[in-house]
């Protein structure tokens, strides 16, 4: 309160209860399905049908459900989780590094075809996933890479949006004078990048990495067409397969439903945690992207 009297010109408005209630209601809508998911994964399949969905039944069955999920089909769920992690980390890490290198190259060097190449890459965003995935599948089966982890990792390394973001970020965060100074000191172009530039790009890099991580973690279409071997599935395709089996069998295999639900809960926890902990990074990165 004293600050307002000190600065009389700054209009310090009162908090609005109506707006707060409105925003809380909105947040409730977005959190409701996740709350339901948590409640549902504490229930046996009988309780799912016989008790109210948005509240717990007396019987807390979460640990049992997790155990059932992890041991179903000889522990294939853990295998899927590991695959997802492998695909997401390699594809996102590699993709972010490629985007950072190229974003820096496009931003700070003049060479023939700079603009043309950049525009072609940006235009790539418009191409429908199927238009790309069908021929990629045919090429990969031709050279024997379909139904291997490479079939997921290699195509996911291309990240046009990451390139755009990195270029914008380089322009905002890397001053030319610094590069000139490093050159006068006799540092090679690559040393400049890895020892000076990369450090300045850390927040932008984290943003690209995080969004690429989400993108690969959530990828469904590519593994759906590329992989036949259930041992290679990521979680998304694996859970969809369980769900398909549960739906096809109707009531008879109702036992799979708690596994789909608990598996869904388990698989979203890592990403939600990553977003919460890396907040500072992705938010500052998005500001840089949005300023453009």
């Amino acid at each position: 309160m004293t600050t307002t009297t000190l600065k009389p010109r700054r209009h310090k408005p009162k908090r609005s209860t109506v707006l707060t209630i409105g925003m809380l209601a909105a947040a409730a809508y977005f959190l409701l399905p996740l709350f339901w998911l948590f409640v549902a994964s504490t229930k046996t399949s009988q309780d799912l049908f016989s008790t109210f969905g948005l509240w717990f039944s007396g019987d807390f069955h979460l640990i049992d459900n997790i155990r059932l999920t992890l041991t179903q089909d000889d522990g294939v769920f853990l295998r899927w989780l590991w695959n997802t992690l492998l695909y997401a980390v390699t594809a996102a890490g590699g993709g972010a590094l490629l985007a950072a290198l190229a974003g820096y190259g496009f931003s700070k060097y003049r060479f023939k075809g700079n603009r043309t190449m950049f525009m072609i890459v940006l235009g790539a965003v418009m191409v429908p996933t199927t238009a790309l995935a069908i021929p990629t599948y045919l090429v990969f089966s031709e050279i024997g890479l379909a139904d291997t982890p490479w079939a997921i990792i290699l195509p996911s390394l291309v990240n046009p949006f990451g390139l755009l973001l990195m270029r914008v970020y380089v322009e905002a965060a890397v001053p030319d004078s610094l590069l000139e100074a490093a050159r006068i000191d006799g540092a090679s172009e690559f040393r400049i990048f890895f020892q000076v530039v990369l450090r300045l790009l850390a927040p932008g890099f984290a943003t690209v990495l995080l969004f690429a991580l989400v993108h690969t973690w959530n990828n469904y279409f590519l593994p759906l067409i590329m992989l036949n071997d259930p041992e290679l599935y990521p979680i998304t395709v694996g859970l969809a397969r369980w769900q398909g089996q549960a739906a096809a069998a109707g009531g008879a295999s109702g036992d799979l439903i708690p596994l789909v639900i608990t598996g869904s809960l388990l698989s979203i926890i890592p990403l939600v945690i990553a977003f919460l902990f890396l907040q500072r990074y992705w938010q500052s990165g998005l500001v840089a992207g949005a300023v453009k």
Partner: protein
Amino acid sequence: MTTTTADRRRQGTSPRTFTAHRHRRGRLVAGYMFVAPFMIVFVAMFLVPLLYAAYFSLFREQLVGGNVFVGLENYSRAFGDDQLWTGIGRVCLFFLIQVPIMLVAALAFALALDTGLTRLKRTTRLGIFVPYAVPGVIATLMWGFLYGPDFGPFAQLADKIGLSAPDFLSQHLMLGSLANIVFWEFTGYNMVILYAALRSVPTEIYEAAAVDGAGQWRIAWSIKIPALRGALAVCMIFSIIGSFQLFNEPQLMKSLAPTVIDDAYTPNLYAYNLAFVGQEYNYAAAVSFVLGLVILAGSYAFMFATNRRSRR
């Protein structure tokens, strides 16, 4: 933007000219070296498959005689294919309903947060954004259960008060149910982009406007929304691309409502089924290119329309 180093070099602050000149050649090569890894992967994983698809979309597989060159026949078939155009019409309708609602909601949330008038700002912002971190597959499975007549809470609530819940998975409501899933997944993402753009507007402008007696509504309408034009355009382009490529949600809903969602419910689903169920790779490639053309046309039409308006 990329010319700054070069310009400075050309002006030539004298003691540096010699070193700069010596490095010039090395630097030209370095530029290519930096973009090369990305471009090589891009060419191998993007341009090559795309050109290959363009090539084999000109053929037809026959039982006798293998692949036969048919020119643009697959394309003329696609342009006259009712199933494809019904799907395109459906995603158009989806786009016209879902995207305005989503972007208006995202804009309203971003503006509300930016006024600084709400309590629990961090909690609400994260709560609205968190669905973005949930895989589309899981979002769809979850909403599928929630919509369901067996143990979905809506059906249970309606049952309790003696009514029957609307059948969310019926012919009439399916598109709306899918739109709700996409709304749930992406509103927070768009909100964060718009909110980030709002944070970069210098606050002095708001203070000056407040001194002039402008209220929050007036500031939002006359300063903030115009300042968001660029960010809104980005959100819009991504939404056009996303809507027309709708695939995961209907593909997964198919197991819950097999009679409502047919093989050609959306263009991408159609291309997928043509290729991987019917083994009609050639025609599927042509269908995806036609869809790509529609997306391109839609995006350009949007950019053209907004450019004209801002110039006026």
